[in-house]
């Protein structure tokens, strides 16, 4: 069953993203939003974990939350895709389940 995982907390504040990526199944989708978008940054202490996860899951990040935080596209890890609110909705529809990591 396809699953969309959502992460809305900073990976430097609590390990929700790290746990999500460790437990997410193959070909699942992961959407980062709110403070979760910080997990998409290049050169951070979690960047290697995120890069490795991209081999098995797709990672998306909500554009509006990136902009609010002053993070531009060129600061993101390669392979992470930016989506808008419509894309967020589409992801929830495309997947059978949604797993929200708080």
């Amino acid at each position, binding site marked *: 069953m396809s699953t969309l995982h959502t992460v809305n907390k900073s990976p430097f504040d609590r390990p929700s993203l790290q746990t999500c990526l460790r437990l997410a199944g193959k070909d699942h989708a992961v959407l980062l939003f709110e*403070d979760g978008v910080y997990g998409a940054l290049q050169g951070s202490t979690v960047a290697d974990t995120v890069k490795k996860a991209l081999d098995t899951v797709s990672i998306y990040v909500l554009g509006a*939350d990136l902009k609010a*935080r002053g993070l531009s596209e060129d600061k993101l890890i390669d392979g992470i895709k930016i989506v808008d609110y419509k894309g967020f909705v589409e992801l929830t529809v495309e997947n059978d389940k949604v797993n929200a990591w708080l």
Partner: protein
Amino acid sequence: MSDVKKFMYVNRKAPYGTIYAWEALEVVLIGAAFEQDVSLAFVDDGVFQLVKGQDTTELGIKNFSPTYSALGDYDVNKIYVEKESLDARGLTIDDLMPLTYEDEDDDWAEKDSIRVVTAAEMAEILEQQDVVLSF
């Protein structure tokens, strides 16, 4: 003015996910009226508060990042950012907003308020404070 105390506000939260960052900024601005020796520390996710280019239009919430630029007017001009926190997040000082103040004792010359310090230096600065308020 012998009763001037050293106040440090420690900011450890990212700006929009929680209300801590904005609350801290309001407390700093209100507290500035008491003419104490105020400084700010940005550590952990708090460094994200100072990232430049914030634009909350799509979120429909207030972008309070311009308010940090008013701190100089409020005589809050010692802003310490921990280097280790920047490094862990893949950030450098170039990713932060430039914050300045006008130095009254130096013919109102414009000077940088932000100082990037190591954890060891930050520990020493914390040690010198009379009051530390953490957000």
